[in-house]
């Protein structure tokens, strides 16, 4: 497969314009670390943003950073760390899950709208995309948003392109809102007997006034905790004095939920990094991986159904609202996930699967006919010849 990797936005736009004129589809990617996500793209050539790199504007006191789309995420994180700041949504590093050998790019992180544990308190990746530059499927460069934190000028195409997996435009530059890194992080870990009680404990923590920035449930616990079996985790990130005070209050308030222990900053960083990257899910190399989003009170029943259907491996984040699922990569398991998500009034993503499965099923919930019609018209507007990532989100 030939890879085109222009080093200017203008050259990239010219590639897309030619592809549009010739009706020749392009697979759009940064460094391809999440190529195995969703469905395989049907395109003979790949257009990569890997050579559009570099931070173009960083103003720590204005809480914003702007970089070209191919900039590796670790490079951005390193620049932010020098000023004690961070990417707010805590995007997972899926290198292990997808077997990638390179670091992911900013553009790929935004195009897939990936958010980690902090989503529950501080919002999703898409909430922090202040501005974009992108190229339409006809090769036209456009901007949306800007560099300021509050902006309602015109239609918000930043949100439309974030999470569109490169199907509505090729991101060439992204401006993100950033925030200070907390001085300290603490975690309350509580031993749990089942998922329903675990989610109830997390709901109680999130309903407390202590500012919980992570709320996860690990079905097999975690070796580092010294607690056997299932464990609920609630995280607080703030100034050190506040973390100490709030964690103690939270532990008191939650005493009835079960035996508990407290984790200090280094131990908290380690365990939440693992949660972020879905390591406790324990997905085997041959397993398919799904993400299901539901109202937390639906989590236990949803999980029980999947356990009955195919002995699913499970991990819960976002207070029970995000269920990571691993299981056999077959249509029966996928059908069970779809059915469970629908029954719970939620949403699902077939996150990782062999191409043979991903290409033959719906990897995302189908849109209702009126919305599907609007989606087709929006797609036809931004990519009339259908050259951007055909097949990525649906057949």
């Amino acid at each position, binding site marked *: 497969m030939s890879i085109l990797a222009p080093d200017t936005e203008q050259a990239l736009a010219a590639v897309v314009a030619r592809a549009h004129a010739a009706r020749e589809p392009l697979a759009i990617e940064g460094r391809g670390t999440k190529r195995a996500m969703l469905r395989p793209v049907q395109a003979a050539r790949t257009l990569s943003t890997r050579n559009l790199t570099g931070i173009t504007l960083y*103003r*720590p*006191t*204005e809480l914003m950073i702007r970089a070209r789309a191919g900039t590796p995420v670790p490079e951005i994180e390193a620049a932010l760390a020098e000023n004690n700041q961070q990417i707010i949504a805590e995007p997972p590093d899926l290198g292990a899950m997808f077997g990638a050998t390179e670091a992911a790019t900013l553009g790929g992180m935004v195009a897939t*709208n990936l958010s980690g544990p902090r989503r529950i308190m501080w*919002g999703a990746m898409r*909430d922090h995309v202040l501005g974009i530059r992108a190229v*339409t499927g006809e090769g*036209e460069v456009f*901007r949306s948003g*800007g*560099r*300021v*934190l*509050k*902006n*309602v*000028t*015109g*239609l*918000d*195409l*930043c*949100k*439309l392109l*974030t*999470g569109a997996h490169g199907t*509505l435009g090729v991101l060439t530059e992204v401006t993100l809102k950033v*925030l*200070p890194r907390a001085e300290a992080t603490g975690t309350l870990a509580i031993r749990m007997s089942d998922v329903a009680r675990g989610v*109830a404990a997390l*709901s109680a923590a*999130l*309903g407390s*006034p202590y500012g919980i920035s992570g709320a996860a449930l690990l079905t097999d616990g975690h070796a580092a905790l010294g607690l056997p079996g299932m464990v609920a985790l609630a995280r607080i990130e703030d*100034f050190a*004095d*506040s973390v100490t*005070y709030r964690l103690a209050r939270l532990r008191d308030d939650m005493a009835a939920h079960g035996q508990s222990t407290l984790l200090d900053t280094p131990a908290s960083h380690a365990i939440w990094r693992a949660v972020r990257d879905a390591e406790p899910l324990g997905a085997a190399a041959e397993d398919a991986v799904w993400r299901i*989003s539901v*109202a937390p*009170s639906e989590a236990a029943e949803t999980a029980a159904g999947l356990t009955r259907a195919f002995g699913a491996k499970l991990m819960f984040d*976002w207070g029970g*609202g*995000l269920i990571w699922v691993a299981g056999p990569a077959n249509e029966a398991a996928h059908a069970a996930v779809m059915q469970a998500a629908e029954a719970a*009034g*939620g*949403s*699902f993503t077939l996150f990782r699967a062999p191409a043979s499965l991903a290409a033959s099923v719906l990897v*995302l*919930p189908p849109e209702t006919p*009126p*919305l599907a019609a*609007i*989606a087709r*018209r*929006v797609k*036809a*507007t*931004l990519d009339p010849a259908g050259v951007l990532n055909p097949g990525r989100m649906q057949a």
Partner: protein
Amino acid sequence: MITLPLPKPEILARRDEILVDLGRLLPADAVIGEAIRMKPYETDGLAAYRQMPLAVVLPRTTAEVASVLRYCHENGIRVVPRGAGTSLAGGALPLADAIVIGLMRMNRIREINLEDRYAVVEAGVTNIGITKAVEDDGFFYAPDPSSQLACMIGGNVMMNSGGAHCLKYGVTANNLLGLTFVTIEGEVIEIGGRHLDAAGYDWLGLITGSEGQLGMVTEVTVRILRGPEGARAMLAAFDAVEVAGAAVDAIIGSGIIPVALEFMDKPCIHACEAFAHAGYPLDAEAMLIIEVEGSVAEQDILLGKIRDICARFNPISMKLAESAEQSLAIWKGRKGAFGAVGRISPDYLCMDGTIPTGELPNVLKRIGEMSVKYGLGVANVFHAGDGNLHPLIMFDANDPTSFRKAEDFGAEILKLCVEVGGCLTGEHGVGVEKRDLMTSQFTAGELNIQRAVKTAFDPQWLLNTAKVFPLEGNPKIAA
């Protein structure tokens, strides 16, 4: 003055027939055609512009909204959606050939779920009404625009409203889970749900802030949050705008994100003090109101840190609230800022640009120069943490020259916001007010892409026509 498109004569000619049709679609009390009863709908919070609509309808259900939209689509009739009409940008200004669809009768709270932390409310529920419904349990709905007593959640969604506390809690878009959305064809679509981050295209994000260009929202599922243990404010006054700006940078740079960080310039301090007697320092050139959250002990620590930072900038005075009552007193002047300016000037225009915060001293200096040039007073309030500037331009609406000057002054400020790297509107929306300035922020190509997205939702351009997009360049839609 802003021009409105010529009404379609064939629609005006069919007015009686249209009223009869609407009467068949809706209960009799939901259709308003008499001039005297339509009068309250002829303008919104941007009262300088007035236009009587063709008719007003006040549906009570999503199905009724859908039936009116479908009828309008089939008959080529323009539609102006309206919440409480508190828009300061003319977002709800009627057109002579348009039906205003008002949402104020859709004011029921459908469901509150504290365990899953959401509320489902109809679009006509007021912003404060959501918080009132959950505050006894310690919860609140975070976005708090200053019109929150009156403004409705449906309008908040359409404008992506912010407020003084969005530095920490985000704007409307960051606090939504789902919408009941009605297309111009009358299709009812559920977007999102009761869960976070539905997979697929982010329709929720695109619709939020779309100013009625894409469809109407009749029901909203919002996130509700547990409130902090408490909150307290402090005030710091400085002898120069630059110094106050540097203090803001130092606070943010220290890793503290206050829940609110408000800036007032000298004219604003004076207007507010005369109005509210809040004890503001009248010799200051600039003043900050800074609010932090947490337990009393945490508040003490954070306010102490901020006081130490401010002390490095030789403040004229500082005042830390010792109690919730003292906090309210500090906020009283700021919350009454618009009313206070209304007291010293017959009329004012409230602008709403956003700038990179580092540009504040430069921008305020240039606004001062413009004030001299146009011969009109201006007072500035500013959400300093996020760069959202609200210059209040004082004028006399009885003097047409004064109004024209105020509009030109405002346009020059907004162009300056764009020039220094900011934008035309941070939270009020484009509406009619800033429509013709869109070409200063976007290229013709960029505007055409946005127009094409609108066309994908509203092929005949019936929804809130003549707002947001400059008329020149809009597609010519066959009648």
